């Protein structure tokens, strides 16, 4: 019984995170200005990181944890570089 609850909640969590990624993608395609699109990209990175951790719980493999750590770092660097680009018009001065 409790295992069925676990399986269902993993599925529900995956559906919720996929829905959140879809909403962020909608905002990224629609967002009126560049900063909205950058923020949507950051949200997409965070949501995919969480989705990979839920995949790790579902399959019981530790490799997904490392993948989500890499995605988190890439998201940080990408958002900082894009914010710098919005501020200055170039990334490396």
């Amino acid at each position, binding site marked *: *019984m*409790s*295992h*069925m*609850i*676990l*399986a*269902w*909640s*993993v*599925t*529900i*969590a*995956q559906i*919720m*995170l996929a*829905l*959140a*990624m879809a*909403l*962020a993608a*909608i*905002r990224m395609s629609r967002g009126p*200005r*560049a*900063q*909205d699109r*950058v*923020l*949507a990209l*950051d*949200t997409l990175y*965070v*949501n995919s*990181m*969480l989705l990979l*951790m*839920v995949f*790790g*719980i*579902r*399959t*019981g493999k*530790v490799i997904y*944890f490392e993948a*989500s*750590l890499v995605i*988190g*770092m890439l998201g*940080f660097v990408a*958002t*900082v570089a*894009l*914010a*710098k680009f*919005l*501020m200055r018009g170039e990334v490396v001065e």
Partner: protein
Amino acid sequence: MSTIEHAGDLPAWAALAVSFFLVIGAGLTLIGTIGFTRLPTFYERIHAPTLGTSWGTGGIVMASMIFFTVLSTRLVVHEILIGIFVTVTTPVTLMLLARAALHRDRAEGNPEVPAEAPVEPAGEAEQPAPAE
């Protein structure tokens, strides 16, 4: 819906705790993203996804920690690296992004953002403190 195969010997309390934290984390992330899609201005929108980076990440990290700790009967805490990393980096990125947006709005003369604070005259700012 079949059960998860590798969780055969997971006790009931651990399965319930993992389910609880998973649904809390994913639900709060979804709520934050709904707010991100629906709020009207950028400066309101920038607050919404932090729900996913605070309690969303916290809940899912906690679920993963409980799951792997109970399943492998030893302490597994390396997921806390992700929690620390996200907690440290989110304020940095969002403050940089908000400053960039404010800079862009001021450069365009958008009347909805507050104007820049007046700069103190250089001579007054450089004045040394009076001697005791």
